[in-house]
C-alpha cells in the first residue's frame, strides 16, 4: 500500500469576494519610521530584510518620522501635492470624455499618484522612464502640455502619435517617457538595455523600469532581472503592486508565497518594499535607488505597495470580483490626503488652499479638454495617410502602392 494520498491542486483565492466584508487582517503594516536606512553602497546580501518589511515615513498624525525622513524643499513638496491633485483632476476629466463618447478608452491611476510623481521628482533631466499605462503622473508633474495628452486620448488631428495608439499609451522622449506598449512587461528589459547603453557610453544618465504586480509573471521581467544582475547597469526596477491585475488578485502572480520585492534577492539585486501611498517614502527611497544607480553601484528593485482604487480601465467592472468597499478599507490610506495632512501640519498648506487647488485643476482640465476637443474627438481629424508613415524611415514601394490603393 502506498503512503501517498491523492494529490490536490491549489489555486490561490483572495481572502474576500463581492458581498464579503473587506479583510486586510493578514496585511502587515509596520509602524512608520521603524525600518532602517542603509548606505547606498550596502551589499544586497546585508539588506534582505528590506524586501519583506515596508518602509514608511508619514505616520498617522502626518509627521515624517524615522531614518528615511528627509528635509524636502518647500517648493518641491507643494509641487508634488499639486501634481497629484492635477493628475486626479486629469483622470476625472478623461473619464467624463469617455462617458461622453469622445474617447474610446481610459485608465485612471487613482490611489497610485504618489508613486510616479514621487519618483519623477527625484530624477534628473535626460533620465529615461520605461512606464506602464498607469504612470501618467510622470508627465503631469513635468511641463508636458496637457492639451497634447488629451489630444492623444481623443486620437484627433493634434494627437502627437497620429492616431496610431490606444488612448493613454503616451510617448515623449523629451520628457523621459518611453513609448508605452500595450503588451505588458516588454519595456522592463528595454530599461535595462537602455541603462546598459548609458554605462557602455560612459554617460551619467539612468533608466527606470516600471511594471505591475500581475506582469511580474511575464518572461521579460525575469529577462530584465538576469541582465540587470549580470551587467549591473544604472536602472531602478519598479514594481507597482496595486493588488489587482484586472480581476486577478496578486496571489495569481505568485504574491502569496513571497513578496514581489523578494524576487530580486535571488539575483543578488538590492530590493526594498515601500508604502506606495506615502509620498515621503516614495521620494526618499527613489532618491536612494537613483543615487545608487548614478554612483555606478548597480540596479535596485523597489516594490511599491498600493491599491488600485479605480477599475482596471473603462472596460472593467471591479464590483464583479472584489468588494465595493475594499478600497476604502485599504490600510495605507489615500496618498493625496496623507501628503495634504502633512503639509497642513507643517504650515505649508491649508484646507482652503486645497479646495482652491482642486477647483483650479478642475478648471484647467475643462479648458484644456475644450481646446483639445476642437481638434476632433474619437479619431476625428486623424489622417489616413498616417497609416503608412513611420512604418519604416523611408516608405518602401509596397507601402506606397497600398497607400495609393486606399486613395490617400
Amino acid at each position, binding site marked *: 500500500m502506498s503512503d501517498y494520498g491523492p494529490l490536490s491542486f491549489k489555486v490561490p483565492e483572495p481572502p474576500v469576494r463581492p458581498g464579503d466584508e473587506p479583510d486586510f487582517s493578514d496585511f502587515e503594516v509596520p509602524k512608520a519610521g521603524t525600518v532602517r536606512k542603509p548606505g547606498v553602497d550596502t551589499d544586497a546580501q546585508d539588506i534582505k530584510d528590506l524586501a519583506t518589511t515596508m518602509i514608511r515615513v508619514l505616520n498617522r498624525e502626518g509627521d515624517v518620522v524615522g531614518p528615511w525622513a528627509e528635509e524636502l524643499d518647500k517648493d518641491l513638496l507643494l509641487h508634488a501635492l499639486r501634481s497629484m491633485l492635477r493628475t486626479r483632476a486629469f483622470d476625472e476629466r478623461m473619464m467624463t470624455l469617455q462617458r461622453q463618447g469622445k474617447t474610446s478608452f481610459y485608465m485612471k491611476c487613482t490611489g497610485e499618484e504618489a508613486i510616479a510623481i514621487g519618483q519623477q521628482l527625484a530624477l534628473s533631466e535626460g533620465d529615461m522612464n520605461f512606464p506602464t499605462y498607469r504612470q501618467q503622473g510622470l508627465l503631469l508633474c513635468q511641463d508636458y502640455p496637457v492639451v497634447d495628452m488629451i489630444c492623444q486620448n481623443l486620437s484627433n488631428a493634434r494627437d502627437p502619435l497620429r492616431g496610431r495608439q490606444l488612448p493613454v499609451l503616451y510617448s515623449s522622449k523629451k520628457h523621459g517617457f518611453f513609448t508605452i506598449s500595450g503588451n505588458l512587461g516588454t519595456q522592463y528589459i*528595454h530599461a535595462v538595455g537602455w541603462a546598459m547603453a548609458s554605462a557602455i557610453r560612459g554617460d551619467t544618465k539612468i533608466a527606470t523600469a516600471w511594471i505591475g504586480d500581475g506582469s511580474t509573471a511575464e518572461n521579460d521581467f525575469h529577462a530584465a532581472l538576469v541582465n540587470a544582475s549580470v551587467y549591473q547597469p544604472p536602472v531602478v526596477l519598479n514594481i507597482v503592486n496595486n493588488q489587482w491585475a484586472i480581476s486577478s488578485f496578486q496571489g495569481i502572480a505568485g504574491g502569496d508565497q513571497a513578496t514581489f520585492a523578494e524576487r530580486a534577492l535571488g539575483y543578488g539585486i538590492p530590493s526594498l518594499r515601500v508604502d506606495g501611498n506615502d509620498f515621503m517614502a516614495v521620494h526618499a527611497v527613489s532618491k536612494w535607488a537613483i543615487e545608487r544607480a548614478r554612483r555606478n553601484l548597480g540596479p535596485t528593485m523597489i516594490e511599491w505597495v498600493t491599491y488600485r482604487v479605480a477599475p482596471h480601465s473603462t472596460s472593467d467592472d471591479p464590483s464583479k470580483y472584489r468588494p465595493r468597499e475594499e478600497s476604502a478599507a485599504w490600510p495605507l490610506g489615500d496618498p493625496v490626503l496623507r501628503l495634504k495632512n502633512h503639509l497642513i501640519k507643517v504650515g505649508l498648506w491649508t484646507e482652503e488652499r486645497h479646495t482652491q487647488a482642486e477647483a483650479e485643476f478642475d478648471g484647467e482640465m475643462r479648458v484644456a479638454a475644450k481646446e483639445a476637443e476642437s481638434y476632433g474627438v474619437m479619431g476625428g481629424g486623424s489622417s489616413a495617410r498616417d497609416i503608412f508613415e513611420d512604418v519604416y524611415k523611408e516608405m518602401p514601394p509596397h507601402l506606397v502602392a497600398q497607400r495609393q490603393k486606399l486613395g490617400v
Partner: protein
Amino acid sequence: MVQMTMIEAIRSAMDVTMERDENVVVFGEDVGYFGGVFRCTAGLQKKYGTSRVFDAPINESGIVGAGIGMAVYGLRPCIEVQFADYIYPAYDQIVSEAARIRYRSAGDFTAPITIRSPVGGGIFGGQTHSQSPEALFTHVSGLKTIVPSTPYDAKGLLIASIEDDDPVVFFEPKRLYNGPFDGHHERPAQNWTTHPLGNVPEGHYTLPIGKAAIRREGSAATIVTYGTMCFVAEAAVQETGIDAEIIDLRTLLPLDIETITQSVMKTGRCMVLHEATLTSGFGAEIAAQVQENCFYSLEAPILRVTGWDTPYPHAQEWDYFPGPARVGRELKELTEAI
C-alpha cells in the same frame, strides 16, 4: 579585395562598422571571448573591448529586448541569436517592440537593431538547428528581412543593415558559411577560396537593401530563390541543361518584385524555391505577386519547391532538403508543362 569565407566576410562587416562608429556594439551567446560558435565574432572582443563585444545570458528575449533598449538610447546593436531555431522566445520583442517603436511613437523613438542568426539545414542539425523561419518575419510590417548567399553580399548587406535606421533580421545560411553548397552532400565540401563571390573588399562598402541579383541569365524559366538554394538551383540547371534564369532575392522584405516580374515576363514560367516549409512559406507570397503581375505572360502554373510541411528531420535530412535531383525533376515538369 581578398578571398573570404562568409564567416570572415560577416566578421569583417562588424569590424568595419565598429571601427567607424563607436555606437556599434556586438553581443549574444558565446560571442565575446570565444568569438561565437561559428566564429563570426572571433577577435572582435580583443580588438574593441568587453564593453562593445560581450557574452549574453541564454535568454533570447533578453538579448533582443536589451538590444532594443540600447538602440533606443542611440547605440547600434548588432546582436547574434545563436541559431534561428532559438529566435522564438524573442519573437514578441521583435514583432511587438522592435518593429513598431518608430510607428507607435510617430518617430519619437526608433530601434535600429540588427539581429543576426544562422539559418537553414544541410548540416545534420535536426529539428532545432536547421529551420528556416524567415516567413515569420516577412509577415511583420516594420522589419526588413535579409538572407545573403555569398561572402560579398553578406558583408555589403550586413554593413547596410547595421547602418540602416530600421530593425533588420539578418539570416545567414549556415551551410554556406564555409563554402557554396549545391546540395550534393555526397561530394567533398567546397570552399570559398576560388569562388569569385568570395572575393571581398577589405574596407567599407554597402549593397542596397531590397535589390535582388540575377545569378544566371536564361530564357526557359525563372527560378526565384535565396540562400543555400541559389547553388542548388545552379546545379539543377547544369544537370538538366534547362536554360533557366536564377534570381537570388538577397532581401526578402522589401521584396524586389520588379526584377522578378521582368524575368517572368520574359520566360513565362516560374519556380519558387526555398528550404522552408511549403504552407504559408515566403514562396506563397512570391507566387501570389507573380500571378498578380505576370498572369498574362504565364505559360504554366507557378511551381513551389520547398521543404516538406513537417518538422526538420535528422536522419532523413537528404529526403527533406530540396536537393538538385528534386529541383531538376520539378524544373523539367515546369518547362514541359503546356
